């Protein structure tokens, strides 16, 4: 079927090369390159020859040889009139030049000319060029033509679909070139009669919904309509049925689009019809289960299931989805299984509860033993996601069973996953130490530094397990071969806490010394250094060890490695100094205060991270003008954050599941237009998302500007964000606003009965309590019972009334979710109405959280009882 209009010379050249050995190939190519270079330099090069030689260059380039000339010839071909030459020219430019090459400038004009041409073939070539390698300059130049091609009814459909994708390229890379007014008409094209235009546009719309939340509503309507049409078997011709599935690509795109904007499906009838459509899609899977080409059905299914979970709050599709997922998890085909794991992990991460997954746990576990590294990784990820406070112990145990059988990469992966699991969930530190030591023992070589650092940190920070850990580690150290990570952590802990077991049989100071000394010879430089320090610390255990340690230091003071040598010399000097001095140097390390990287330190509960007044740190930035509004909005969801003669800033807080949104509404109170209106974040934190930032916006009197801040989930504690609003109203005006996003907004109110409350209160204990007593700010402030109650409720505490012996005390509880971990918080507030004083006690499973909550509440309460408010 192929039309053979190929150049003969090229064909012979290719077959010549194929007959040569690798070494000769290079020779032949160099000869050919020299010949082509000479041809290009001669003045009498026919168009046909140019085409032939450029093609040869392309072939040589594909073989992996660098091409340093001929670019200009490629450009010349591109501007030729003959289609076949043009075609090669475009191909050569695409392959040889990248978008920033200087020569690209030369082709921009001829690309523009081809776009304007009436010949659809030329249009197509030019559109391909823009879509595949259009740089900024090219895109700016040809943007109007492309827009014209897409929107004009006179254009052929095949050109329109190419135009849509070229425009997508421009929007993707240089969105500032695009007219924002064009987005809506493009969304309308989703409904185009031509299924291909529709498909091309759907790719575009996907990017639009990622970037423009304001257009979600419109997109949502269109996409549901289109999906319904296709699933019910209308609106496409038979050429678009692919293995008995109509337009699978479009279906997938539509599902993915809807997944992003599903929150706009608010009215019941739309929701129901979408659920119906999804139900039908799931049924198709059931019907076609036995057909040979399942891939394409599965492709749609995974996206349909994600969407079904997001949209369906009635639960009518739940059973069907779970059955499909279950089938696929146990599917023999590795691709399907891989994606089933992936999808399930995604669903769990979205917060869906999948209890029926438990039946499949063994299958998922067994996938850890597959040869395929991709599948192993996915199954591990899924198991990690499936862990919760109830099943983590058994899960960790089972993971440990698989540890010895894995390759080193997967081992490392598994170890860091297990280590972080134990850190998140451990309430029993003995168990924590046991599991971690098992990791070290079984797969010491795959333990990376983070893991053993963390173990040491936990041991140092928890007095109760020090003796237990040092005993265990000492036993492990006595075996002949230990990996670096075990030697390092073991000797470090032994140096610190060796004295705790010095009186036990079999672990006398001398035996401890010998154990460490034995390791010294065989270990790496980094470890040696640590061992020397451990020896120094051991030396104070017993006077006669002194001499032995000194002789070791002497031995290493001539080490070839400067680091080791320096330490040995310095330690030797230390030993010769008076005793008291040494004991000061060798004092126990203090508690680590750096919280661990990934999670909040639920485990290092002794860490007293100093969090003085969290609001005090706003000192550097003056936010005083917004403070009254800020304090009010801390416990209210709606109100004015700031107002002066020129602008007013209203705020509205919304809460959806664990998501918190703050919308700010800027209003112009004057009858004049402000220019250069901008709002920028001065202080922010990683999880804070802003939908629109104003820079240089025009702010007319009739207009209201809106800015939305949202936080999907908390990963760490934060200070309230600050924005700077500035505009030109004759002079530059600017004001800093402290945004009322405080930790208590994330509390989920909870109510306990008297028994549970005090049981938990006692369980957390006084050492994890933050207590503050304070009076009110302002001379005329008066503590008011009803207002106080409103504030406490507004701060999202669940009020447990009537359980305190003193009826005027207020008792409350709440749960805070930080990095997927639930932190319980309990409040007891004792007001003194005579003296206008408050005593505030907050206990939480996490001390840092208790501190932050207490200080921010103190701040809010102090400033909320002014006589005039």
């Amino acid at each position, binding site marked *: *079927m*192929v*039309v053979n*209009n*190929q150049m003969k010379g090229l064909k012979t050249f*290719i*077959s010549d090369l*194929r007959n040569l050995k690798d070494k000769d190939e290079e020779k032949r190519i160099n000869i050919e390159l020299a010949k082509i270079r000479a041809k290009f330099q001669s003045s009498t090069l026919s168009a*046909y020859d140019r085409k032939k030689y450029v093609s040869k260059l*392309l072939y040589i380039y*594909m073989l*992996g040889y660098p091409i340093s000339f001929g670019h200009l010839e490629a450009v010349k071909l591109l501007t030729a009139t003959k*289609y*076949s*030459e043009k*075609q*090669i020219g475009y*191909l050569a430019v695409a392959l040889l030049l*990248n*978008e*920033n090459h200087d020569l690209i400038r030369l082709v921009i004009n001829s690309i523009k000319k081809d776009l304007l041409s009436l010949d659809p*073939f030329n249009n*197509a070539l030019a559109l*391909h060029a823009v*879509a*595949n*390698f259009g740089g900024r300059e090219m895109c700016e130049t040809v943007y109007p033509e492309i827009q014209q091609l897409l929107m004009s009814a006179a254009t052929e459909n*095949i050109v329109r*679909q*190419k135009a849509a*994708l*070229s425009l*997508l390229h421009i929007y*993707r890379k240089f969105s500032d070139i695009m007219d924002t007014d064009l987005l809506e008409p493009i969304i309308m094209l989703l409904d185009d009669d031509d*299924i*291909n235009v529709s*498909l*091309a546009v759907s*790719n575009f719309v996907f990017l639009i919904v990622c970037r423009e939340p304001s257009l979600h509503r419109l997109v949502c309507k269109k996409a549901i309509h289109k999906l319904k049409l296709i699933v019910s078997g209308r609106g496409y011709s038979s*050429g*678009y049925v*692919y293995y008995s599935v109509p337009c*699978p*690509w479009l279906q*997938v795109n539509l599902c993915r689009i809807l997944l992003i904007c599903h929150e706009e499906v608010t009215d019941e009838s739309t929701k129901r019809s979408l659920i119906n459509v999804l139900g039908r899609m799931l049924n198709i899977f059931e019907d076609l289960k036995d057909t040979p080409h399942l*891939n*394409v059905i*599965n*492709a749609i299914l*995974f*996206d349909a299931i994600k969407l079904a979970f997001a949209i369906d709050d009635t639960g009518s599709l739940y059973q069907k989805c779970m059955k499909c997922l279950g089938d696929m998890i146990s599917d023999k085909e*590795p*691709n399907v*299984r*891989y994606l089933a794991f992936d999808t399930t992990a995604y669903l769990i991460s979205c917060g869906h509860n999948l209890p029926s997954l438990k039946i499949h746990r063994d299958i998922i576990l067994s996938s850890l033993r597959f040869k*395929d*590294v*991709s*599948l192993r*990784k996915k199954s591990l990820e899924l198991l990690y996601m499936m862990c919760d406070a109830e099943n983590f112990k058994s899960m960790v145990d089972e993971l440990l069973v698989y540890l010895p059988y894995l390759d080193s990469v997967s081992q490392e992966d598994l170890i860091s996953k297990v280590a972080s699991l134990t850190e998140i969930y451990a309430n029993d530190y003995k168990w924590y130490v046991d599991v971690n030591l098992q990791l070290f023992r079984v797969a010491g070589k795959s333990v990376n530094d983070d893991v053993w650092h963390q173990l040491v940190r936990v041991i140092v920070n928890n007095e109760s397990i020090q003796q237990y850990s040092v005993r265990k580690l000492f036993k492990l150290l006595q075996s002949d071969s230990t990996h670096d990570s075990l030697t390092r952590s073991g000797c470090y802990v032994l140096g610190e806490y060796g004295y705790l077991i010095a009186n036990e049989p079999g672990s006398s100071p001398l035996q401890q010394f010998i154990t460490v000394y034995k390791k010294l010879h065989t270990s790496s430089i980094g470890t040696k250094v640590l061992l020397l320090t451990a020896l120094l610390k051991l030396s104070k255990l017993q006077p006669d060890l002194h001499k032995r340690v000194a002789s070791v230091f002497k031995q290493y003071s001539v080490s070839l490695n400067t680091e080791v040598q320096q330490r040995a010399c310095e330690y030797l000097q230390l030993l010769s100094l008076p005793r008291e001095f040494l004991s000061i140097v060798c004092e126990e390390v203090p508690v680590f205060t750096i919280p661990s990287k990934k999670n909040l330190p639920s485990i290092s509960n002794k860490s007293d991270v100093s969090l003085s007044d969290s609001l005090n740190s706003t000192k550097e930035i003056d936010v005083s003008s917004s403070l009254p509004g800020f304090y009010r909005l801390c416990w209210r969801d709606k109100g004015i954050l700031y107002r002066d003669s020129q602008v007013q800033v209203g705020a509205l807080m919304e809460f959806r599941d664990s998501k918190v949104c703050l919308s700010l509404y800027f209003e112009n109170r004057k009858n004049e237009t402000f220019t250069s209106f901008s709002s920028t974040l001065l202080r922010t934190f990683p999880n804070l998302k802003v939908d629109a930032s104003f820079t240089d916006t025009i702010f007319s009197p009739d207009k209201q500007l809106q800015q939305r801040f949202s936080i999907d989930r908390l990963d760490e504690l934060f200070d309230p964000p600050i924005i700077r609003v500035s505009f030109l109203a004759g002079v530059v005006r600017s004001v800093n606003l402290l945004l009322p996003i405080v930790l208590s907004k994330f509390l989920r109110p909870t109510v306990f009965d008297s028994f549970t409350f005090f049981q938990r209160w006692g369980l957390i204990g006084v050492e994890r309590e933050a207590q503050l007593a304070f009076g009110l700010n302002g001379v005329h402030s008066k503590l008011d019972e009803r207002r106080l109650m409103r504030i406490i409720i507004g701060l999202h505490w669940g009020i447990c009334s009537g359980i305190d012996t003193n009826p005027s005390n207020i008792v409350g509880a709440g749960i805070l979710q930080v990095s997927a971990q639930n932190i319980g918080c309990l409040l007891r507030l004792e007001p003194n109405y005579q003296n206008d004083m408050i005593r505030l006690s907050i206990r939480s499973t996490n001390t840092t959280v208790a501190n932050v909550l207490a200080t921010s509440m103190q701040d809010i309460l102090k400033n909320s009882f002014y006589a005039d408010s």
Partner: protein
Amino acid sequence: MGIKFFLLVSRQGKVRLAKWFYAVPTKERSKIVRDVSSLVIVRKPKMCNFVEYKGEKIVYRRYASLFFICGIDQDDNELIILEVIHKFVEVLDKYFGNVCELDLIFNFEKAYYVLEELLLAGELQESSKTNVLSAVLAGDAESEVDAQQDTIQKLVGNVKKF
């Protein structure tokens, strides 16, 4: 975004086609090609068709002696990309008539033209096999007209000489 690059690599690691949908410096291109092909070639037939590479996902499928490889984003739909590959193979098969590696070596530019009609800006632009095929053939016909004109001109030139 959709597909980031599309590679065709033989079992010996020779590149038969490489198409990039985002700007990468040449040096990095050859590194990615080397890394990805060595990652894919060693995989056994019973393993799944996805591998991770530096935060990207590689979707590949082997047809006879050739590996068809796509680089995509982590959260893209892998199976539908596999179908894109399959579609490409189907069209090649129709176009060349029982395609083999040699066809793609000697007509490498045609393989690019076919891919161009199938994928644009990294996204599937045409999902009907017949439409892709007819677009490519129409292009061929267009060049054929050129070739005929060439011949005619040559003949006219010869006639004039006499």
